[in-house]
């Protein structure tokens, strides 16, 4: 499976073709993505906040599931690279009229596009599309079901690197709804690859998958214990829309046990950084004082998301060998 993913993601020359998951990538490659993101830092200082790298390219945001932050940062990243962007919101389009996924893809392909950024509720959707698109098209996974959200994981580790420099001595706690979270899965994979010392997952039994230890993490069901001495806390959103079973007694009770407050944060290292992929539910998984506090890097994560997405898109695009004329 890993080998198959690798040949799917990276061409024979090792260069990125599709970006579907961080699993199976090596440390040097994740660092290359972050270094490339660094090099785009000066673009936002320009009066014209654009570089002509992907001029003449068309990128399609194919979102089968709603998202504001991910879609807009992908769109902005593409525009800063001078690509043309088409936003296709499938919820309001042909699939609701019965068109199959492949038919949708074929039709958009026929419009001579160069890249798909895909968000889908089904795990494996981006892989499926990557396997079936025309060879010149790159696919970027912007979140598939419970499986992966690789650009989110990359922007998170990029934010950590900006503050901590190195991963070796880092203790990271991922707190909340691990069960439904593709973000958690991708983050664990990325942190493992980068050599974080300890990765903890913290949450109620109902929201932590039974086999999670196999990913090399330690499980805590008590927030205070889970936070003890950690350098980074990643809070996850309580995914209300996926709470169809009796996962938690009530939001109020969830907050009482797993909500991140200033008081609870005292268990962590003094220079702990607090992260959240957004959107945040204030008073459900995190207190406003923490979300807006000095240890929070939540808004930096958003800015870093643009740089990471610029890096991934420009790296994936160039394998095509066309366009990009300044």
């Amino acid at each position, binding site marked *: 499976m890993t080998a198959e993913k690798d040949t799917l993601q990276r061409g024979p020359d090792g*260069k990125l073709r599709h970006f579907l998951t961080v699993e199976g990538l090596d440390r040097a490659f994740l660092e*290359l993505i972050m*270094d*490339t993101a*660094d*090099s*785009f*830092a*000066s*673009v936002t*200082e*320009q*009066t*014209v906040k*654009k*570089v*002509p*790298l992907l001029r003449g390219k068309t990128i399609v945001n194919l979102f089968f599931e709603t998202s504001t932050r991910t879609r807009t940062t992908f769109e902005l990243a593409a525009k800063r690279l001078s690509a043309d962007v088409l936003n296709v919101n499938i919820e309001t389009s042909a699939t609701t009229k019965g068109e199959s996924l492949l038919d949708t893809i074929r039709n958009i392909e026929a419009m001579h596009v160069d890249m798909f950024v895909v968000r889908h509720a089904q795990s494996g959707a981006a892989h499926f599309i990557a396997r079936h698109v025309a060879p010149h098209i790159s696919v970027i996974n912007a979140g598939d079901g419970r499986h992966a959200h690789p650009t989110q994981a990359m922007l998170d580790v990029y934010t950590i690197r900006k503050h901590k420099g190195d991963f070796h001595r880092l203790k990271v706690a991922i707190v909340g709804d691990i069960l439904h979270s593709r973000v958690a899965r991708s983050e664990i994979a990325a942190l493992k690859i980068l050599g974080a010392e300890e990765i903890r997952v913290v949450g109620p039994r109902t929201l932590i998958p039974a086999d999670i230890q196999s990913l090399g993490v330690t499980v805590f069901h008590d927030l205070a214990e889970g936070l003890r001495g950690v350098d980074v806390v990643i809070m996850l959103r309580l995914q209300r829309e996926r709470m169809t079973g009796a996962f938690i007694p009530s939001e109020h009770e969830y907050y009482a046990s797993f909500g991140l407050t200033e008081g609870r944060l005292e268990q962590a290292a003094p220079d702990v950084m607090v992260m959240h992929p957004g959107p945040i539910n204030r008073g459900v998984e995190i207190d406003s004082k923490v979300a807006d506090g000095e240890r929070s890097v939540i808004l930096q994560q958003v800015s870093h998301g643009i740089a990471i997405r610029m890096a991934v898109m*420009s*790296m994936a695009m*160039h*394998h*095509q*060998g*066309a*366009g*990009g*004329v*300044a």
Partner: protein
Amino acid sequence: MIDVPKVEDLLETLEEALRLEIERRALENPLMIGIHSGGAWIAEALHRRLEIKEPLGKLDISFYRDDFSRIGMHPKVQTSQMSFKVDGRPILLIDDVFYTGRTVRAALNEIFDYGRPSAVVLGVLLERNGREIPLRPDCRGGALTLSKGQRIKLMGPNSLKLSMHTV
């Protein structure tokens, strides 16, 4: 065998040429920008010698190159450092070797994405034959005629030296 000129001699000539150009065109408080990496090394020396007040600007033109599709992303792109406003200011743009002119075109495009300078003067350490677009330096330290496969490259940053090779 072609004699490779000494960097120090070229620098002196270039410095003098830039002084004359600044005077002739009455450029007030010019900014200086070096193109990564060789141009930035030369610019560092000139920035000192010409006593430019503002910090030296450095451009990495990788994102503006016209051969991105052929050679792809450079593995290590430096961040451009432009800690000043270029609007309405004269700019001394510095590179090491002027060859096809494509690097300068990319640099000009990038500079104009930062703002609208009042003038741009191009100074290069060495001009060689092989122009491919209608751009040429205003000031140069020297000139060299090379055959088609010959390349000349500035080595540095410690003890700058020109080095020849054949491709």
